């Protein structure tokens, strides 16, 4: 299981992931930091796959670099793209001491791990992966839904709580609160609106239900407010008959027109 191929991949991707972490640490711009961290996470995903954990490798690439880092970039674009780090040290010597402590911590852990785990021979997860006639994904799923069922259910509660919390925290609220009906009426009568009663709707006399049909005033003229500027394709001559009808100059069809007792041929076709 410890092949030369794995060694080659490790000795390429290990330094790459370290370089990504260092780049994240030292780049001034936050966006550059995020991109360096994406590099580290991608190489870590490949390292998971090399260690016979293909499920985790793909989850790492999909969830971390695909979802979480994109969320980071989203928030960066909204919040602080220009706000690079200030060079003012609030606590004097903080960077120096942080570096010293980091080197000390690294020396400590590396020393412990290097001394205690040098001669370890890994069992390998090949047998665990192929147990019960499945593969890595099937066995992780079996473990999740049997041994770790309760923690798994707890994570669902955690995720729902996190989603609700994020919505509550990120909700902006209305800039100006919505007017009640009473305030709206007052505002209309104070003249804040152009029409106290709203614009006249189209097709008042129901000869057509098209938006292009203008409303007719009682004298038969077209109400100019009911004409839409963007729909000027309506030929106003088409409504000439309606206008004259409303104006009352024309003879109306008699009451027998629908009963089939009309006298003339034109009346039958009306």
């Amino acid at each position, binding site marked *: 299981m*410890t092949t030369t191929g794995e060694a080659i991949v*490790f000795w390429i991707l*290990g330094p790459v*992931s*370290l370089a990504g*972490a260092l780049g*994240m*640490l030292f780049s001034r711009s936050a966006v550059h*930091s995020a991109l360096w*961290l994406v590099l*580290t*996470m991608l190489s*870590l995903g490949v390292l*998971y796959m090399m*260690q016979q*954990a293909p*499920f*985790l490798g793909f989850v*790492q690439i999909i969830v971390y670099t695909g*979802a979480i880092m994109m*969320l*980071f970039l989203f*928030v960066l674009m*909204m*919040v*602080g793209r220009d*706000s690079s*780090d*200030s060079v*003012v040290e609030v606590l004097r010597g*903080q960077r120096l001491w*942080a*570096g010293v*402590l*980091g*080197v000390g*911590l690294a020396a400590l*852990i590396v020393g412990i*791990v*290097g001394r205690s*785990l*040098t001669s*370890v021979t*890994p*069992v390998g*997860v090949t*047998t665990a992966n192929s147990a019960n006639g499945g593969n890595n994904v099937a*066995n*992780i799923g079996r*473990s*999740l839904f049997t*041994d770790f069922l309760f923690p798994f259910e707890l*994570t669902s509660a955690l*995720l729902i709580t*996190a*989603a609700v*919390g*994020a919505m509550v*925290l*990120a909700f902006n609220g209305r800039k100006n609160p919505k007017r009640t009906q009473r305030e709206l009426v007052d505002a209309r009568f104070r003249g804040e609106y152009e029409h106290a009663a709203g614009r006249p709707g189209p097709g008042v006399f129901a000869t057509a239900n098209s938006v292009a049909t203008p409303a007719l005033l009682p004298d038969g003229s077209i109400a100019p407010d009911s004409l839409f500027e963007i729909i000027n394709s309506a030929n106003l001559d088409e409504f000439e008959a309606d206008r004259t009808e409303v104006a009352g100059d024309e003879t109306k069809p008699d009451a027998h027109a629908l009963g089939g007792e009309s006298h003339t041929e034109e009346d039958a076709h009306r």
Partner: protein
Amino acid sequence: MSPTYYLLLSALLFCLGAVGVLVRRNAIVVFMCIELMLNAVNLSLVTFARINGSLNGQVMAFFVMVVAAAEVVVGLAIIMSIFRTRRSSSVDDSNLLKY
């Protein structure tokens, strides 16, 4: 190659993340450093699963990823709401409790 190298890489990544948390002043970058530390721990969990020949370590790394996702969502929302009120995402500017 021995899996010890993976553990050493994980330790180095963790220390870089810890130094970043101490050094960087932008709250979002501090958050990214925390993510790096979580990733380093995940790498060591996967390596331990391989050393012990059991899948429990991988399941644990999976849970760490879930918790990290929830933490990122809530944390970024908090950072955004702080930015909305104080127009800054620097951790030095959130010092009202100090005085």
